[in-house]
């Protein structure tokens, strides 16, 4: 019966119930979307790294595997790598951030094609001039661009030479020497990719290279992509923690206000329940059940909103963001929603439990 009263109370104020559940849903969505985007971007980067077809990934000394590293390797090192046993192809590139999580990659197209098997062109073809750019299909779709169009990059116009199939390294490619020059990195590289004659020898070659170049970050492609996790991104786990804390505070405030209003509005009803013999515990139980149900509705709403945000990202900004659905975080998000909601219901609950029955019954 108490559950029926809980449901009827929530149905009695449909707008307030919907708004509260929606706000709790927003906090759940915030968490699920943030984690989903973090994982999505990392997984997408890992997928694109794998898509190149390299066996070994080399980053400059002192750099992180998944941060935007500076171009800290001399271009001459390409010759050194090409002479190593089992290395059949070498490609060096410069990666430059262009805002947010987006980058432009400077490649030597001939070198890159040898290593990766080349791009598949959906429109146009390889760049012919110094200030031409290749964009991937998601970038073209999101920005409504095609071969021959001009885009602004690094404060200058670039002609789109071709639109390529997505999945190889980056979304924007320009001639390496042009990017080196524009970013003051002439003769320097951000990363080097190596292709071996036999992939099974990767660990052996990596070990040999690490011995020769102890300061360099040298990874097999499997090891490199395994580093694309939330915990390996500096500050990301802390950032997610902050968002969770903010979500709890948000849930606390919203539910606190809602339940406080509900307790005030139902003063007389609480008095009636007490006159029928309801104990303070019964009244608190009633409010906590109501709050828990709001948290459940909010949680389900939040999961649906997270699907919505993924749809929005896929539809409107496929080139910039990728969001994963993260079912393993659903229980955590529920815990956060429930914690915030129950904390918020605590004071109104205690107030209701302590309400004097006679005063409550005379409340207009």
């Amino acid at each position, binding site marked *: 019966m108490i559950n029926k009263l809980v449901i009827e109370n929530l149905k009695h104020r449909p707008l307030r119930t919907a708004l509260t559940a929606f706000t709790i849903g927003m906090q759940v969505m915030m968490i699920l979307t943030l984690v989903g985007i973090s994982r999505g971007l990392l997984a997408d980067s890992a997928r694109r790294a794998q898509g190149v077809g390299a066996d070994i990934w080399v980053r400059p000394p002192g750099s992180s595997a998944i941060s935007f590293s500076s171009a800290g390797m001399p271009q001459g090192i390409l010759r050194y790598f090409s002479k190593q046993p089992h290395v059949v192809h070498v490609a060096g590139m410069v990666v430059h951030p262009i805002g947010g999580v987006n980058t432009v990659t400077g490649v030597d197209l001939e070198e890159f094609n040898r290593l990766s098997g080349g791009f598949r062109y959906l429109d146009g073809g390889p760049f012919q001039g110094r200030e031409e750019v290749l964009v991937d299909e998601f970038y073209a779709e999101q920005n409504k661009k095609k071969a021959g169009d001009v885009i602004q990059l690094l404060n200058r116009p670039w002609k789109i030479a071709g639109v390529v199939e997505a999945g190889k390294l980056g979304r924007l490619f320009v001639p390496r020497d042009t990017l080196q020059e524009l970013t003051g990195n002439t003769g320097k590289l951000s990363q080097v990719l190596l292709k071996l004659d036999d992939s099974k020898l990767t660990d052996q070659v990596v070990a040999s290279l690490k011995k020769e170049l102890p300061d360099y970050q040298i990874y097999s492609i499997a090891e490199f992509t395994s580093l694309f996790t939330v915990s390996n991104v500096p500050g990301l786990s802390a950032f997610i923690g902050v968002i969770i804390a903010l979500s709890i505070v948000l849930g606390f405030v919203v539910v606190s206000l809602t339940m406080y209003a509900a307790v005030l509005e139902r003063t007389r009803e609480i008095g009636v329940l007490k006159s029928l013999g309801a104990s303070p515990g019964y009244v608190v139980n009633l409010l906590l059940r109501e709050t828990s149900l709001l948290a459940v509705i909010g949680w389900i709403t939040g999961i649906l909103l997270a699907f919505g945000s993924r749809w929005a990202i896929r539809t409107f900004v496929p080139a910039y963001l990728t969001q994963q659905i993260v079912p393993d975080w659903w229980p955590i998000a529920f815990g956060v929603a429930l914690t915030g909601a129950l904390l918020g219901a605590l004071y109104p609950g205690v107030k209701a439990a302590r309400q004097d029955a006679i005063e409550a*019954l005379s409340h207009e």
Partner: protein
Amino acid sequence: MSDTIIAIRDLRKIYRVGDVEVAALRGVNLDVQRGEFLAVVGPSGSGKSTLFHILGGLTPPTSGNVYIDGRDLMGMSEAERTNLRKTTVGFVFQKYNLLPTLTAADNIEIARSIARKNGKWDAQFDEILKMLGIKARLHHKPRAMSGGEQQRVAIARAIVNEPAILLADEPTGNLDTENSNTVLSLLRDLNKRLNQTILMITHNPEAAAFADRIVQMRDGRIVS
């Protein structure tokens, strides 16, 4: 003494309003017999509502003794008074006080649920619902019912747990004459047919006339 269900001895209640003490009851003595229909009448401020609240366990007395079905209210804890409301006393209020979100049936059921009574109510209570004339209205919410119907649902709710005492505070205060007479007749029927002890507070002499006995209160005392 075995037939005395309520025994009140030198009952006093003092409210503190700021620094001022207000004596609401100034030594009330009263016995109510089991199965009696008693009306307490008196003007506003005479102390009848305070007496009602103390008998219902809604507020503790300041001094004196109140024995309800043999148990002294004076020594009762808050939890024991809550239990008294659950098992021994049923309330009917002037403003009906039905829960607006629940149907009539659920308003009755919630009282059973609080008293931890499960399952369908028995055939005897079904008969009472027929007698109250609300059997066909059980699935309606209070807003869809007339004042008289709401008050009859409130009476059903008050007696569903078979309390020893039914306390009615101005039960016809919000009703027109026709509905008032219906409700008062029903209270009298309940009293006669079920031997239900009823203590009714009213300022209306016509309503009080339905009772077996009338006591008058004035200035916190019973005067006749």
